[in-house]
């Protein structure tokens, strides 16, 4: 047998071995027979010594070609086995992704908190800070400083809950001497007073929070509810500034289709005073049952801070003027989701709370 025949035979034998393998494992097992010194082809290298010098290069080339051929055959077999292994693995790993057993367990913020945060965010975007204060207040902060002195007839607008402080309690309309009249704030306005007392203007702040009235709970009243009030005190602040600020807020919170308007009204703590209406969010001004066909719904009260209030807080009303506004948060939450009964928000039924 010629040298070349021997090489061809060895190559054919190696390829034959590869063809007999059935998987990566058996392929790996025959690798010593295919490559290296101990393989048949490897063994044929000795032939190089047995041929003439001028033939040596040809034999070398023939050996190389045979080895490359075997390597390619091995590589092809390896690829084939890897592919079929992957196919087999994927098939066994097939999942029905709808078999998830996980039950969602993220919690929920209360609807009132969500609404309050949305409002705060809008005002922060408009350059306001957020101020807070105590829920139990003195008569001074809740009434007197706000131009509602003792026996002021407008005090009857607020059904006030008073605290029992034992001997220090004063009952009635704040006309007492030494005794203290402590109450649960009927609005967040006392926070405005505290801000003006402690901060030099310019002031741009909102006061969200819980307020209390001596009201029996029904579909639209709760003894405990939430308000947000805004206060701006700066040089040259005007009623037009109030209207512009409320417009900007209305568009930011409710969307561009909703605008606001002011109507004259009366509050002891503002002069001029106004009611603040917005385009009915249900019909967008067309007129519907919710807005009693007027196209408008009443949102809250506002006005220019009364000079007496500024004076009570140590602010010079000739140099500084300001406006204030306020409205209920609970009602906004009801409006947004079409909730019919305010009391539903306070049963703490998780089936209700989970929806927001």
């Amino acid at each position, binding site marked *: 047998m010629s040298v070349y025949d021997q090489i061809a035979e060895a190559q054919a034998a190696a390829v034959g071995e590869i063809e007999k393998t059935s998987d990566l494992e058996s392929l790996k097992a025959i690798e010593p027979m295919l490559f290296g010194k101990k393989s048949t082809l490897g063994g044929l290298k000795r032939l190089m010594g047995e041929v003439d010098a001028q033939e040596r290069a040809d034999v070398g080339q023939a050996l190389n070609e045979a080895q490359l051929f075997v390597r390619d055959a091995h590589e092809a077999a390896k690829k084939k086995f890897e592919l079929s292994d992957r196919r087999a693995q994927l098939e066994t790993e097939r999942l029905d992704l709808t078999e998830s057993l996980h039950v969602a367990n*993220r*919690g*929920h*913020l*209360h609807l009132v*908190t969500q609404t309050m*945060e949305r409002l*705060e965010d809008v*005002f*922060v975007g408009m*350059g*306001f*800070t957020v101020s*807070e204060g*105590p829920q*139990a*207040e*003195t008569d001074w902060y809740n009434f007197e400083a706000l131009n509602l002195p003792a*026996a002021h*007839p*407008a005090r*009857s607008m607020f059904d006030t*809950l*008073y*605290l*029992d*402080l034992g001997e*220090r309690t004063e009952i009635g309309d704040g006309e007492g001497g030494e005794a*203290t009249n*402590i109450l*649960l704030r009927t609005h967040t306005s006392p926070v405005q007073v505290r801000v003006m007392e402690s901060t030099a203007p310019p002031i*741009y702040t909102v006061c969200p929070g*819980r307020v209390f009235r*001596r009201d*029996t709970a029904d579909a639209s009243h709760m*003894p*405990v509810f939430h308000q947000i009030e805004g206060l*701006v005190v*700066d040089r040259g602040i*005007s*009623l*037009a*500034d109030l*209207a512009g*600020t409320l417009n900007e807020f209305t568009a930011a919170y409710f969307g561009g289709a909703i605008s606001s308007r*002011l*109507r*004259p*009204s*009366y509050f002891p703590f503002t*002069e*001029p005073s*106004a*009611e603040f209406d917005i385009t009915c969010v249900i019909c967008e001004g067309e007129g519907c049952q919710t807005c009693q066909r007027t196209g408008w719904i009443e949102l809250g009260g506002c006005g*220019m801070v009364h000079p007496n209030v500024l004076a009570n807080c140590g602010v010079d009303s000739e140099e500084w003027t300001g406006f204030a506004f306020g409205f209920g948060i609970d009602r906004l939450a009801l409006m947004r989701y079409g909730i019919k009964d305010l009391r539903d928000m*306070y049963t*703490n*039924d*998780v089936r209700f*709370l989970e929806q927001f």
Partner: protein
Amino acid sequence: MKVLLSWLREFAPIEGDPYELADHMSDLGMAVEETRILNPLEGVVVARVADLRPHPKADRIQLVDVQIENGDPMQVCCGAFNMSVGDLIPFATIGTVMPDGMEISQRKMRGEMSNGMCCSAAELGLGSDHDGIMILPEHLETGAPLMQELGLVGDILWDLEINPNRPDAMSVAGVARDLAARLDVPFEIPEWKVPSSGAAEGLASIQIDDGVLCPRFTGRVLRGITVGKSPLWMQMRLTLLGMRPINSVVDVSNYVMLELGTPNHTYDLSLLPNGHIGVRRASDGESITTLDDQERMLQPNDGLIVNEADEPIGIAGVMGGASTEISDTTDSVLVELACWEPQSIARTSQRLGLRSEASARFERGTDWQINVTAVQRFCHLLNEVTPGGIEIVGEVLDVAGTTPDSISVPVRTSRISMLLGRDFSSEEIRNLLTPIGFDVENTDSQDVQLVKIPSFRPDTETETDIAEEVARHYGYGKLGTTIPRSPDAGHLSPQQKLRRVIRQVMTGAGLIEAMPNPFLAPDDITKAALIVEEPVRLLNPLAVEESVLRPSLLPGLLTAVAYNYSHRNMEAKLFETGPVFEASEDSSGLPLETEHLAALISNADAFAATSLLKDLASTLKLEFQLTNVDGLAGLHPTRGATINIGDIEVGSLGEVDPAVLRSYEIEDRCAWLNLRLDLVIEAAISVEGVSYQPVSTFPSSDVDLAFAVGEQVQASEIEMTLRKAAGEELQSLHLFDVFRSGQLDEGVRSLAFSMRLQAKDKTLTDEEVGVVRQRCIEAVENAHPASLRA
């Protein structure tokens, strides 16, 4: 306040679309709550009651034969029994559509045919009287359309909401004045002339002892009174404006009050010795029997009207006395038209529970300068409505107390323009104010005008008040809008941001935010096994169940979980943030109010609470130390711990006491976490911005150690010892296994900790790791009743 177009038009030629007029009134601050174009009520006619018979099969309805002109009587079933044979009544014929939309049809009621409906005033939309069928005056013609006969066709009724600062708008004339100014039409209150005879001298006298209480008292003597029915037109106007017609004298009195905003009163002159009336404040212990035959105890400062013997005969501005009440036999009266101190009327009427149309007007302050005009109007009307007229005796009696000074306010055009955000000229301001009764004069300064406040606007006192009048009549909506800008960027405070973060941690852990009632019943505190010496109580709670301000968030959340359990929502994982209250000796008198965070997780053991705390610690980068404490108030006596940040106790956690849960009918364990939110937030702020540790690039080594530890030692104590002993190479440490078994000694459990060690500057050798390991083991074994488990 309700107003009728036809009545307004007696003061100003007001015309226009009813809804546009309503918009004007709303825009002037008299919000229109309802605009009603009076229903022509086609099909409702005047009919005569021809016969009344009992219904054979029903007690609550009777059979009425109704006759129109000379036609045959028609049988009607009727539920009212107030009419007599011969009365004229409104009768809705078959096919009539009533104001509420109901169509009248022929029908049988318990076997008897009913051919129409006899109507009450309320059913016709002519008032609130539901009690019986409306009885019409004799002179009407049967068969005539009712509304035409009443002169009401096409009239318009507006219901206005009047603010407390607008006493002037509590009258038809006042509303007309405001609206006329807006429409630029003339307005005038007529001078009603009445013929008088004789002299009042000696017949009546008025004496004011307290001029502050009574700034002005005007009266007049009238003779030849016959108390009868007032004319239908007057009855209709009163009814439509919400007052019930009574008799001619009372109706005239109410009519004048509605028209001019001046409440008034009449005394039977024969019951007034020498016709004398005095005005003073009550003294302690006095009492009076009022018109409604009630004995009323008086207090000092109540305004009082007294007779010659100084005996009370009326509570000023609130209610007259029974002793001088007008009766059917009254011939002579003294009319009172007085002004009263608003605060006094407010206090007295409120205390006695006698709030009325009159007190509502006096409380706001009535116009003291219209007294004589109003008395004249009273005389004029009573003369007109009394058949044969009355005798008006002598001159008007008019006594002044302390009348308010007439106020003139300097008003700067520049200031008004600045406040309203629009440049007004002085002339514009003048033109807006003059038609509503404010006289405006020039001054030496071009910027300043002197504005005289009319007596019917006692609410208006300052330049700022004038600014509101200018804005109101110019139109709030026409002022334009501008947006002021804060010089600083808007922001939440660090506390507010952290509160939001903490709430997010709670919801991230699957908790739902609840908002329980902050008011508790007194026994809620003991029901939740809390110990509170002196809870903060409400002085005037709505109910005793809501009479205590919460000293803890626990009772509220327990109630919320119990509510959910009773509705089969067993997955009640709730949290709340908010203040709790405790009594305080603070000089302000305010109770101590601290903000808490609490979580109540149903169907979970105490470790649900510790997990939650760990989540918070990780987010806020805080280290909380727990100390197991038996018997914390409200908590499971052997499953509770206090929470500290360093030396400061900031809360507690564990499980709710099983006995408490039973009293709330909650049948599962409940984990509980309570934190002083204010303290936690302050601590979190203090660690914000602490510098970070660069991540080491060298390999780390893990060491696991398990100890048998006596039950009296907290796992956290072992952890602390390990942490200290491991030194600066300790990268992390956590408890990864706890077990109790019979294989361990009695009173001992196994605690296994996993530590990861890593140096910043080198790879730790096996020897170095071994040294740390040994140091840790020795430290634990030396410090605690603990031994390494092999």
